[in-house]
């Protein structure tokens, strides 16, 4: 009976009030009775700790005294001898030399100055307060007032006791010092010269700083040093410059740059719309125009950053990576350009359609009608042919893991789009099941899979070391396919789609821990041993943030899929925070990292470090301002709903969190302006003439004209 009670009590402690039936947050409140007992326990604990510390000190003292008595003095002194510093040894040698001249020492006096400890006889007041657990305010105050002097007295007593022990310890030390000084006096001169002098030279040895270089003047014969001649006043830490690389086919460079440039445009466009939509939560009557209405602009925002910014950015980087790791030229530049035209047309027409009210039916990310989305599908098909043909003609034996991820992402996305737009299974609940599948595969199999592929190329490149484990990458690849494909319907938990399908989705979401942990481990272990590179690189911080959010954002997704968290968070702003944590924290940060890594290689120009820094910090801080208030407010909203409060209460409650979202969103948007400026600086033709480059060109010209004149003479 008793054991059963204990078990019940433990269960209550462990699980609190959170069980399936009640679903309420813990009802624990601090009462004055709790406070009183808490105080008394804390005091007792403190006293006990003080007593234990004092006891330990006393026993150490006793041990020391016993050692002094038992151990041979010479043993102790030899230990002391070994611990002497160079300066102390010098004093001893001087003393010995002085003593040789026959004068009597007063060192003894100097060493044996004693500080006498005064005896303390402070008596502690007896601790007999019996806190009656009354919850009356007056009594509590009285008890506190009584306790204050008692506690002060106890504290004083402990401090005094501690000082007494220290004094006693010093007394013992003095005795030992006196003995040691005597011992030093009795030492013979031979012993001195032998042991002490050797010890002194050993202690005082320092490097001359020219052991390796010799006395020759310095010369950087291998071009390793890069000294900034005019440092000026640095505002930001100076980071390493991008390494000049062998030139890439200018035609391919142009294609990649156009992809990235268009992506930047759609980022600016899409997030300007997003920022405006966010402001509408705070000021719903900011405009009353049909084309700028919230419901129409929201899909314009999501679709243009998805299909315009992130997709073009990824494909552009893919066009750089695929020929690189296959060690051949790209199969067809022309197909690449066609794909670019198609996607730009798709997003442009799609955005206009949405604002004009032509909407496929309201399924998220499926708002473009099929003729518009077909353009995107064609672009995917063209890119797939281009990538596969390039890989087929590769000169390397193996297919680098980046290509696994990127090519599979394109194949899967074509399949996803077909499943989403073919009408034969879209009636009634069929539409909902496909919608759940589509929206999540779009995110996970297109953006996440493709971006992982890009990171598998650029992260090792930027760290200048191979990826930590190829096998982990392979494991993550196959498990991602296995689990991610299943999780779509977790957006419709508790809806009328079949219960088993919901359960499969939840299980799949839990399974996602495997590829996520494998991927994160792989990236972090690749960083390992090269952490010092993070601080003098401007691309690696982006990779690091991306990696951190890859873990936290993805695992948050798993947590959100469970049934209880669906009660709390589904339909609230928490979901919006999650999608920004992942699409922004993971995808955008990784893309920026790779763009800052690749564009200087294509153009030979870098962006100013201060604006890259501004981009990084504004984006990071803005995203945190955006997501954390929304997660907090979303949780409060869910709790209000669960407690059956009026709906409008959940709207008014959100107002401050929506304001924070608008502030964070503005910072993010500002960071994109910096990013666009950086892109401009990296791509645009430099108006200033490069003095050194022009001089060399002139020399070359002279050389060629010289050749012709020579030829003419002949």
């Amino acid at each position: 009976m008793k054991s059963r009670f204990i078990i019940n009590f433990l269960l209550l402690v462990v699980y609190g009030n959170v069980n399936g039936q009640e679903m309420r947050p813990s009802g624990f409140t601090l009462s004055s009775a709790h406070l009183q007992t808490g105080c008394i326990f804390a005091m007792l604990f403190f006293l006990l700790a003080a007593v234990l510390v004092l006891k330990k000190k006393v026993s150490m003292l006793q041990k020391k005294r016993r050692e002094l008595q038992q151990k041979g003095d010479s043993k102790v002194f030899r230990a002391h001898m070994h611990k002497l510093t160079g300066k102390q040894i010098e004093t001893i040698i001087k003393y010995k030399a002085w003593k040789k001249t026959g004068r009597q020492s007063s060192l003894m006096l100097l060493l044996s100055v004693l500080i006498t400890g005064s005896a303390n006889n402070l008596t502690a007041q007896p601790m007999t307060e019996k806190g009656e657990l009354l919850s009356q305010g007056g009594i509590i105050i009285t008890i506190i007032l009584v306790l204050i002097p008692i506690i002060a007295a106890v504290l004083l007593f402990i401090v005094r006791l501690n000082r007494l022990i220290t004094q006693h310890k010093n007394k013992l030390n003095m005795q030992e010092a006196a003995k040691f000084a005597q011992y030093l006096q009795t030492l013979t001169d031979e012993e001195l010269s032998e042991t002490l002098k050797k010890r002194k030279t050993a202690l005082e040895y320092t490097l001359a700083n020219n052991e390796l270089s010799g006395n020759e003047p310095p010369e950087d014969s291998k071009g390793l040093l890069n000294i900034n001649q005019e440092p000026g006043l640095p505002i930001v830490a100076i980071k390493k410059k991008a390494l000049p690389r062998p030139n890439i086919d200018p035609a391919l460079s142009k294609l990649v740059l156009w992809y990235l440039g268009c992506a930047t445009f759609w980022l600016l466009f899409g997030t300007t719309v997003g920022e405006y939509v966010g402001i509408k939560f705070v000021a719903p009557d900011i405009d009353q125009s049909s084309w700028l209405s919230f419901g129409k602009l929201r899909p314009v925002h999501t679709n243009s950053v998805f299909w315009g910014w992130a997709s073009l950015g990824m494909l552009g980087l893919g066009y750089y990576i695929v020929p690189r790791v296959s060690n051949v030229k790209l199969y067809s530049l022309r197909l690449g350009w066609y794909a670019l035209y198609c996607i730009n047309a798709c997003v442009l027409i799609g955005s206009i359609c949405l604002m004009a009210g032509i909407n496929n039916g309201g399924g998220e990310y499926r708002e473009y009608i099929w003729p518009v989305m077909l353009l995107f599908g064609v672009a995917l098909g063209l890119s797939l042919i281009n990538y596969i043909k390039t890989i087929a003609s590769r000169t390397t034996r193996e297919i680098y893991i980046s290509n696994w991820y990127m090519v599979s992402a394109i194949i899967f996305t074509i399949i996803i789009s077909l499943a989403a737009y073919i009408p034969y299974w879209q009636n009634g609940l069929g539409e909902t099941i496909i919608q759940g599948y589509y929206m999540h595969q779009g995110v996970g199999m297109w953006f996440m899979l493709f971006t992982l592929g890009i990171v598998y190329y650029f992260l090792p490149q930027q760290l200048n070391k191979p990826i930590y484990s190829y096998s982990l990458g392979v494991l993550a690849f196959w498990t991602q396919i296995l689990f991610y494909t299943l999780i779509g319907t977790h957006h419709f938990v508790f809806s009328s789609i079949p219960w088993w399908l919901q359960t499969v989705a939840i299980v799949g979401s839990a399974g996602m821990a495997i590829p996520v942990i494998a991927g994160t481990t792989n990236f972090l272990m690749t960083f390992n041993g090269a952490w010092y590179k993070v601080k003098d690189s401007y691309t690696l911080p982006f990779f690091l943030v991306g990696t951190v959010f890859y873990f936290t954002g993805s695992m948050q997704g798993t947590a959100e899929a469970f049934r209880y968290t669906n009660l709390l968070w589904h339909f609230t702003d928490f979901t919006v925070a999650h999608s920004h944590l992942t699409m922004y924290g993971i995808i955008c940060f990784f893309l920026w990292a790779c763009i800052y890594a690749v564009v200087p290689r294509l153009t030979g120009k870098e962006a100013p470090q201060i604006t890259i820094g501004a981009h990084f910090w504004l984006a990071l801080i803005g995203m945190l301002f955006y997501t954390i208030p929304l997660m907090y407010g979303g949780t409060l909203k869910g709790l209000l709903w669960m407690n059956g409060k009026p709906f409008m209460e959940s709207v008014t409650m959100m107002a401050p969190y929506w304001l924070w979202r608008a502030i964070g969103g503005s910072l993010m948007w500002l960071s994109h302006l910096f990013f666009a400026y950086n892109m401009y600086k990296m791509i645009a033709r430099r108006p200033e003439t490069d003095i050194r480059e022009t001089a060399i060109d002139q020399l070359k010209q002279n050389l060629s004209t010289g050749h012709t004149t020579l030829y003419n003479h002949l």
Partner: protein
Amino acid sequence: MEFFDNHKKLFGTAAVMFVTLTLVVAIMPAIHNQNKNKPLAGAVEPGDDVIKGKAVFIANGCVACHTQQVRNVDMDKVWGSRPGIAADYANIRRTDFWRNTATLMGTERTGPDLTNIGNRQPSQDWHLVHLFNPRIVVKESVMPAYPWLFTIKKKISAQDIAVNVPSSYLQDKESKVVANKDAVYLVAYLQYLKQAALPDGKNAPEFLYKQTQKQLPGNGDNTNAVNGKELFAANCQACHQANGEGLPGAFPSLKGSPVVTGDNLQLYIDIIMNGYDANPGYGVMPPVGTNMRFTENEVAAIVNYERNSWGNKGGEITPEEAKKIMEAIQLKISKE
């Protein structure tokens, strides 16, 4: 490995794996559900106006904030009398050649769920005012205004559907607001959104995760746990307003109302439970109490709140009295 060095085998395997899983987890369940589920006998096929209204709903992206699904969890029971079932969506088919099926279940509930809005708020007057600018009737609302669904005129003709907009929301104080066809269609669609009754003898699936009722210490019954003010805010305030004064010309004032403060409790509770449409010049009041399945405790709480707020001074009633009156009204209705 040889296998992974062959691009055809590698990408072929990945594609086959993905297609197989897609078939199992998405396409086959989708086909199965679309073929198996049939609409309920009580479900009404949408008329022309409703179909046009739904198109307006889709074009304006209303689904971004309004869900249309009552989940089988207790917290969702304010949105419908029963959890949504597969049959509720069975009569929704492809919109047209260009556009996909729109079940409009939604994933975000920035605004209220609309599954049962046709029962919860059937008043055309209210919807039109609310669409013109939601803040006229719900001060704290963040919903967009839809002025392009209306025309502002100097004079109203006989066919026009006039909207009762307070002059402070108009630039020209003398002008009148008339609903366009799109607004009327949209309201027709919202009025159409009702949960169909289950066939007799079929039990609705249960709401899960039931909230245990709050018990106040030392109080045998739960009267005190029911908060009249919150019930009013959730069910009445949209029309009668937080200050109880309603909206002149659209929704009657409860402040100083003879029905609220008077002695005819049977009429009063009848209106709460079964609605009211006898007051010319005002909109139709829906049967709020029946829709929300008010208990006698809840009815008493609302009555007591209304009778003792905004300067009203009426006597309190007990749940037992409310129960008696509700039973009497029930008897009267069944006799008719």
